[in-house]
């Protein structure tokens, strides 16, 4: 039931954004999202309650600025590597520990790792993220974790418990 309502709200929102907020569009969108969420909602992982407003607020205010900042850094770093005549690389696959339990949270963390400097997540396990790193530094697992996912881990751990 919770999944059904959440999927309905998400579908209706996307429909209204796509078609504009006219009366006919919004009403037909309600009907369409009702039918669609009745059919597919059990296969999806849209599931939230009223705390979503607080979470989205936190997400926008804290996570997105940090994310954008790290992403710009990542791109400048990548540009430096690409444009230098001899490409400085020391690639390797490393493991990173994570404490986040929620699946959507782990997905967001993996995506953030992909988009931040020099790292790309390859696979996620129960509590490990396998990461491809362009420039491996350090030796121990704890060092990797701190280097790669430290700030995101804290922020996302607060948002997705």
């Amino acid at each position, binding site marked *: 039931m919770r999944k059904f309502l959440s999927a309905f709200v998400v579908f209706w929102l996307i*429909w209204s954004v796509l078609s504009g907020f006219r009366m006919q569009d919004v009403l037909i969108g309600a009907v369409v999202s009702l039918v669609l969420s009745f059919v*597919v909602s059990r*296969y999806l*992982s*849209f599931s939230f309650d009223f705390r979503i407003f607080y979470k989205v607020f936190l997400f926008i205010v804290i996570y997105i600025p940090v994310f954008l900042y790290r992403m710009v850094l990542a791109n400048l770093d990548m540009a430096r590597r690409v444009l230098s005549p001899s490409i400085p690389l020391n690639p390797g696959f490393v493991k990173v520990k994570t404490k986040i339990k929620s699946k*959507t949270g782990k*997905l967001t963390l993996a995506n953030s790792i992909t988009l931040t400097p020099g790292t790309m997540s390859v696979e*996620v396990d129960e509590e490990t993220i396998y990461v491809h790193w362009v420039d491996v530094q350090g030796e121990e697992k704890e060092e990797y974790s701190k280097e790669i996912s430290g700030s995101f881990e804290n922020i996302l751990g607060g948002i997705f418990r």
Partner: protein
Amino acid sequence: MKKIIAILLTVAVALFVFTNLYSGDSDFKAFGEKSLEETVSKEFVNKTVDPQRVQPETGSANIVTSIVVNYRGFDTMGEVTVLFVSALGVALLGGVLRKKVTFRYKPGFIINQGMKIIVGIILISGIYIFVHGHLTPGGGFPGGAMIGSAFLLMYLSDDKFRTRIAAFKVLEGLAGSLIMIVGLVGLSTGGYFLYNFLPNGEIGQLLSAGIVPVLYVLVGLKVGSEVSNILGDFFIGEVEE
């Protein structure tokens, strides 16, 4: 050797096309020089946007849609029938071959979880595409393909998702029969098959253009459910009929 022949053939075709396009006395006019006044397309544009007419003939903002679904509606029905026949063929062959697509590894966590968010967005935008087929580019066939692609994504990224959704069989037949019923209602009210018996309304509104959006929604549902059925036959590999 094969590659050399392929390259020679490509060059020959390219030379043929270019000489025909750029020589002065060819039948093809240069870009922008062809006069549209003498072609038939002007007539169709006028029928839709001519301000002197009391009511536009189709009321559809997208002229291509008005031609595909209104003037050539019977043809579109034929195309949907072709899809239906191919889906039937795949279902029959799937029963004979009994060969499934097998993967060496399970789908990874990232795609498995990402799918559960992305599929929702794909499905709702696919439905948006075919409901707004008479206002925006797109329509029944791209929208149906998007719905089919969403189910392909589900089959690829979740090894638990092997249950065929039974609703699709029903939906496919229902959409096909409703297209026929809309055509027959037109036959009984207006005198010919697929007659536009609904009011045309105002161009640009969602509820306009008579039976065009109705038909396009049905076509979209039918294409989507058929593509999903074909994919299901490929992945599950057996049919129970």
